[in-house]
């Protein structure tokens, strides 16, 4: 019990701090919403008073006392109508302003999250799961700001509670005490009940996650399941998980139903007791019949707003939990540091040098150590090495996707880290093996926020040997790509990504296995085209195919994170037995990818 109290206290303290921060950002919206809620609360009280007056001064005298009606009804009807209208206006004001507050805060928080993450180092991203990060932006940001919707109502409900207490006590002290003690009991039970139920409900969510994980695994392994005839076994696994979920849901519902029954019957019981006590007080001449109706009517209208307070306290702890996950990301300070150097785009390749470069994704595990190179401007260099030798890492370092742990990489003598944000990509283009397509059309995907004209985009597409298949797409260059657009094969995606790099006319072009999914004949065509086009670029290419490697002016052979040898193909063949063995291994890897591509294409 005391533990629970303690945690409620923590939740309240930190929850109020979190909510306070949100409200300070949009004071006016909250003020408006709260005013609406208070107007609503006031109108509930006024409505009860009006009903009490109408009963005492109109209904009872006319219907029971036999007094003549005359025009007395007009005032009553107008008063009831006016109060309802006022109540309605209060609701509109509250909901509109609260909606604005909630949705605006949610958009702001999401924007902050994305903007923040766009500046963080890849080394940080490497330690996160993309799914988790997206969940924070989607689910947690919504959860963190959801509290803003019911908060003004709860504020109004609190005001209502205070006014009610005052009015009922003013009317009759005994009835006031009775009403208040019942209300307090209701709220306390509701708060505890809600907390307990929702804590159990989180367990249900975890079980739900397990069921979902099982379905994912089982469906992903469908081929294995089927070929071994284990469908029944899988179904049994699912039945057990699903029934476990069923049992958890039932347990929660039992508790929930219990509290619900108590909390819903308490106000009704309160009203009945109030009526009995009220009649006794009327009998002793301490209370008017109109007052009794006012009190009863008021308490009957209170039920829902009072329950709102319990819900908001729960929402607060939920919101706080969401905010804590959001905050964990916003607090990360591992930003990519940028200098102030501006790019100098030019129609000439840039020389790339590395000096004593060492790097590891985790400190204990060096991927590259003591690597030096000096690539003269305009040369085409192939980087060759076994899986895990560090070629891709080297390529990413050249594009400054990562920074070396020690040493320096420079472009025409300028340290990569000296460039201002977004400046380096104006001189350097990096094409990864996995090409990411954005939710945009072909032109947008190639230009990618740059200012390239459509002619430049088309030229780049031609160079990337992408023009033919683009022409065959439903809307040519206007065809929508990305997750929700036309599906492209791996090779086609890679060619779009390549065009994206070429359209920038980079001074350093880095191709990290960027044509691996393209048929070898097409790849040769691409690479020959690049040569013929006489691109003003220094080209660094990580490749597996012999034909691509042969096109390079020079080959850098990496082994165990060091440059084992460099020179022309023939020189390396003569000097490095490892190099020849590697080319053999590459061929086999290539065959595997060809097969994967075939499968992918068989599907589409």
């Amino acid at each position, binding site marked *: 019990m005391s533990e629970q109290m303690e945690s409620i206290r923590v939740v309240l303290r930190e929850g109020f701090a979190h909510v306070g921060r949100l409200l300070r950002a949009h004071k006016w919206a909250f003020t408006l919403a709260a005013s609406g809620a208070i107007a609503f609360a006031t109108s509930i009280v006024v409505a009860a008073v009006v009903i009490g007056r109408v009963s005492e001064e109109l209904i009872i005298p006319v219907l029971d006392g036999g007094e003549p009606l005359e025009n007395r009804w007009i005032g009553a009807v107008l008063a009831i109508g006016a109060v309802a209208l006022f109540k309605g206006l209060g609701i509109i004001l509250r909901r509109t302003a609260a909606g604005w507050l909630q949705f605006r805060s949610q958009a702001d928080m999401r924007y902050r999250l994305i903007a923040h993450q766009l500046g963080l180092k890849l080394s940080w991203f490497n330690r996160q799961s993309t799914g988790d990060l997206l969940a924070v932006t989607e689910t947690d940001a919504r959860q963190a700001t959801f509290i803003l919707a019911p908060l003004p109502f709860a504020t109004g409900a609190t005001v209502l509670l205070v006014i009610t207490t005052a009015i009922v006590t003013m009317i009759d002290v005994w009835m006031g005490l009775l009403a208040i003690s019942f209300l307090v009991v209701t709220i306390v039970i509701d708060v505890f009940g809600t907390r307990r139920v929702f804590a159990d409900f989180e367990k249900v969510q975890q079980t739900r996650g397990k069921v979902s994980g099982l379905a994912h*695994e089982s*469906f992903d392994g469908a081929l294995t399941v089927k070929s071994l005839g284990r469908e029944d076994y899988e179904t049994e696994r699912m039945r057990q998980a699903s029934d476990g979920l069923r049992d958890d849901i039932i347990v929660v519902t039992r508790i929930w139903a219990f509290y619900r*029954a108590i909390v*819903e019957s308490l106000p009704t019981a309160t009203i009945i007791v109030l009526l009995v006590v009220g009649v006794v007080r009327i009998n002793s001449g301490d209370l008017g019949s109109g007052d*009794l109706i006012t009190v009863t009517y008021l308490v009957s209208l209170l039920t829902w707003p009072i329950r709102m307070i319990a819900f908001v306290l729960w929402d607060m702890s939920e919101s706080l939990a969401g905010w804590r996950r959001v905050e964990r990301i916003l607090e990360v300070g591992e930003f990519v540091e940028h200098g102030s150097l501006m790019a100098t785009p030019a129609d000439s390749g840039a020389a790339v040098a590395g000096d004593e470069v060492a790097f590891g994704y985790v400190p204990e595990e060096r991927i590259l150590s003591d690597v030096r190179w000096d690539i003269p401007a305009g040369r085409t260099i192939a980087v060759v090495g076994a899986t895990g030798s560090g070629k891709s890492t080297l390529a990413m370092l050249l594009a400054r996707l990562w920074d070396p742990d020690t040493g320096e990489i420079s472009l025409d003598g300028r340290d990569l880290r000296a460039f201002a944000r977004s400046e380096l*990509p104006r001189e350097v283009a990096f094409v990864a093996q996995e090409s990411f397509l954005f939710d945009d059309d072909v032109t947008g995907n190639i230009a990618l926020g740059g200012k390239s004209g459509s002619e430049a985009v088309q030229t780049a597409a031609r160079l990337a040997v992408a023009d033919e298949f683009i022409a065959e797409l439903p809307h040519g260059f206007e065809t929508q790509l990305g*997750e929700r657009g036309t599906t492209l094969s791996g090779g086609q995606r890679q060619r779009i990504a390549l065009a994206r790099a070429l359209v920038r006319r980079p001074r350093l072009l880095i191709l990290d296995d960027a044509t691996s999914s393209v048929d070898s004949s097409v790849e040769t065509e691409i690479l020959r085209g690049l040569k013929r086009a006489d691109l003003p670029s220094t080209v660094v290419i990580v490749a597996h195919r012999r034909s691509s490697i042969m096109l390079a002016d020079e080959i850098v052979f990496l082994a165990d994170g060091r440059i084992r040898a460099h020179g022309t193909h023939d020189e390396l063949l003569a000097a490095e037995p490892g190099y020849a063995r590697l080319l053999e291994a590459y061929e086999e890897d290539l065959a595997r990818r060809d097969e994967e591509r075939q499968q992918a294409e068989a599907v589409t």
Partner: protein
Amino acid sequence: MSDIATRTALRRVFGIAPALVKGLWLTLGLFTIGTTMQIIVPVVVQQVIDYEVLDPDGVDIEGVLWRGGIALIVVVVAAFAAKLAFVRLAIAAATGLSDLRVATFRHLHRLSMLHVQGERRGALVARVTSDIATIQDFMEWGGVGLVIGISQVLLAVGVMVFYRWQLALLVVLGVLIYVLLVAWFQKILSRAHDKVRLRVADALAAMGEAISGLEAVRAFGAEDATLSKVSKTLDAQFEEEFRTGRLGAFLFSSAEVFAGAITASVVGVGVWLGAAEGVTAGTLVAFLFLVNLLVDPVQLLVETLDQAQTAGAGIRRILDVLDTEVDVPDPVDGVDLPPGRLEVAIEGVRFRYPTGDDVLSEVDAHIGAGARVAVVGETGSGKTTFAKLVTRLLDPAEGRVRVGGVSADEIKFSSLRRRVAFVPQEGFLFDTTVANNVRYGKPDASDAEILAAFDDLGLGDWVQGLPNGVDTEVGERGGNVSAGERQLVALTRAWITDPDLLVLDEATSAVDPALEVQLRRAIERLTGGRTSITVAHRLSTAEASDEIFVFDAGRLVERGGHAALVDAGGVYASLHADWASSTST
């Protein structure tokens, strides 16, 4: 029309998961009893005012206590009934939906879309998770609201009619007008919600690609463009949400305004009718309470009906899955495969996916028992499809596949899956131990058998070298071990089933050379002495086979031994030349 569709859909679902409606009538009855809790207040108010407060003989305290006592008992009974009803409904919903989930899951595993349309798997998972959850939520929240709302409205109207039918008529008319208004408004609102959903999807997509595409964004310096896209979609979402919120605010406030208008009319008409028409003071005051019991549930009901449509959509998506015919069914009166190593005959086989051109056509071939066949071909030539047809993971559109002389579609699954093993290219591992993954091929295999299987394939040292030997946890999708190691486990899994026909989609992970050697050796042992069909990517595999099938554009164009095919100078010869030129110096 959609109502009719929803009703039929519901009937189907109740047929599949009868637990959903088990004891439903009793549950509904209990809910109705539970609702009396709401009705009791106006009734007590009327009783106390008419018979006690306004009684010319004065208040009879004992009578008041009696009335109050009875009312309290009613409240307690109603609370119990409500709790019971709620629990009963939850049990029915949870049980029925669990059954529905399992049924859907089982059916999906019978279909081949899981392995044919890999990119739809995520959506199919949603059938057994979020779609079911939508229905569950509806039943527990919306459904309860619906039941309570309806019984509350019925009870309230009943009490009103009992008191004074003229006033009841007035209230019902007022509420009817309100229902029409809300229903009309709800349509506008649900259109607005649809727009919100579109904007939400846009914003989520923009945020998603900013994070998953971060590397590309950074490599191309597209941070500003990305951020401005995110900002734009977030603002668009906000605008739409705010607009919809405003509409909702009007709808919400209308309930209060209507309640006020109806209350005012009841007071006006009530006093005008007067005591002569039998309207007592207590009755009229009771009406004021009753009006509030009508308007709120009516609004809730209309909203719930909208939710019901969403749940209905979930139900229909699930039924779509359940209605999809099993494309490769287990034969009804299937036969067992004959004993011994199995031969395979392919007779005039053609295959195509529902949407698309032929993947394979006019394939005729025979593979003798114990023969070792390699299948080669260019990208998209139909090799993998051929492998799936032989193992009856797919059925041909035309022609026939015979295994052991029996038409494949007449072989009992239990026999077929035990005797014919298929090792897919990607060695898929489940999130459990190495031993359990091998046991997946033979559920009753002992640990000793599993160790022996690894030894047989020359992998004993490798498996002992794992952190916990065969008890090593492989992690989600085998993520704790390398691709090559996953393949080793998959091969052992096939070995332990001791198949008489082995179909292997060769996976050549260019991993570390030591593992490569082990893979080769394991495959050799596995294929030795049994009929085997290997989809080959290595020249060496093809060379070592008894016969090579060469596929080109969905046709079996050449077959024969390695040397003969090279000499023939056809497709295989040019494939071979490609291989040779890219490997030799």
